[in-house]
């Protein structure tokens, strides 16, 4: 609670002076013999203090009218219960909403995985049924082995041709790897 600045109540006199000035015997509007507190003579802090110590029958006079301390307390309690009930209900609603979201998300994830799995198996089968492309890599390997064998007895000119072909096969391998 900020004491200074939160006061729109008129008067910023010292507490003791204010209290003595703000409390008087009841006249009209309150039980006979009860005290009357004029809100506009108190700071909020002082008003809070008074609310805690004054008897239920004490009368508070504000621009809204006259109320007994008992009435104000009862209203405060009622308001507090309202807020508590509303906040709990709102919170339960939010939690239920989130749990529903979780259930929905999990269901969607599972369904998505199942669909993806079924699709992968079907697609894999379809791809596998397609006549296999010539095993390019195996052909390259076969030729590489032949080149390697030939290079052992090849003339310099033939060796140059072997190297050239080796370069082409390497490029093919690189393209396959991409």
């Amino acid at each position, binding site marked *: *609670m900020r004491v200074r600045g939160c006061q729109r109540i008129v008067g910023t006199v010292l507490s003791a002076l204010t209290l003595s000035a703000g409390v008087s015997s009841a006249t009209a509007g309150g039980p006979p013999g009860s005290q009357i507190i004029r809100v506009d003579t108190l700071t909020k802090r002082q008003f809070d203090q008074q609310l805690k110590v004054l008897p239920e029958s004490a009368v508070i006079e504000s621009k809204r009218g006259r109320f007994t301390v008992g009435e104000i307390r009862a209203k405060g309690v009622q308001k507090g219960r309202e807020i508590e009930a509303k906040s709990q209900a709102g919170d339960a609603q939010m939690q239920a909403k989130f749990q529903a979201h979780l259930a929905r998300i999990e269901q969607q994830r599972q369904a998505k995985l199942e669909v993806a799995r079924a699709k992968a198996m079907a697609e894999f089968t379809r791809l596998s049924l397609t006549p296999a492309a010539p095993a390019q890599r195996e052909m390259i390997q076969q030729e590489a082995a032949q080149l*390697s064998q030939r290079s052992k007895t090849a003339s310099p000119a033939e060796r140059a041709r072997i190297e050239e072909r080796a370069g082409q096969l390497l490029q093919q391998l690189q393209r396959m790897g991409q």
Partner: protein
Amino acid sequence: MSPHNRRYRILTVVALAFLVLVPLHGDATSHLLLQLCNQVTCTGALTVLPRIEQLVPFITNITPGGSVAIKGSGLGSAEGELYLKGLKTYLGMALDEIRLTIPEEPGKDFWKTTAVLGMIPANIVQVLDQPARLQIMTKSGTWSNEFPVNFTAAREDRLLSYTDPAVKVIRCGTDSNKDICNASQDPDDLGSYPPVIPGCGAATFCGLHSNCYGCVGDDVDSDIFEVRLKNGWVFTKLDTSVMLDEGYVLGLSGLRVGGTYWRPQITWKATSWETVFYGAYVRISGPKGVPWK
């Protein structure tokens, strides 16, 4: 320049070029055959080394519960083993290699010499999105190349609680007679009405500001909160609840979906005899089993 000198210069250039280029050419071609024989077997019996060449797009999903379709060569006709390797926990500890299951269906074969289908176990947790590797071991025990892949961690969703260390109250306005942010009351408050202090429940943050009953005038102030996520967690949704009669609550918005940091400033007004109460529920999503704070 005389014709003699010109001829001499041309001959010098040609001779130098010959000296430089011929040996280089020879080295380069030898190198090519050597390179080729490093990639395929050139000696001995003709055997095809197992090799993962590519992943089939659209039916490959490198994530827990996902499937991997591999195209390759020399994988063998008998079923071997397929592994996911190189994963680390979010703490940086290496995980054991993970063996993928090869599906079984009557009449179908998901392990072929040139193609393999594997299923990634769904129970991989405590890992972030990260690069990993696939490797095949044939039935005869020969390992293939390691094929680089991008692993995507499984996700989970949470509702961030106000008690979570990722949530902080930076400032709680004090203009009212009762000021409470995230169930923590302004110590200067004297306990004025209403006497009840509602908790935040499941909210990420909440505020209660109660003007005194019987007082005159409005209370206006603001609260500031901070929410910070890490380890790949992001915001996904914001729900709010506000309870008031006459005043206002501003600033309960602006959460960036996909973001990791939010610092909302909530400005409120509680008229006399009124209590303002608000709550924000922030949903987050991130790698399963990984902390967000």
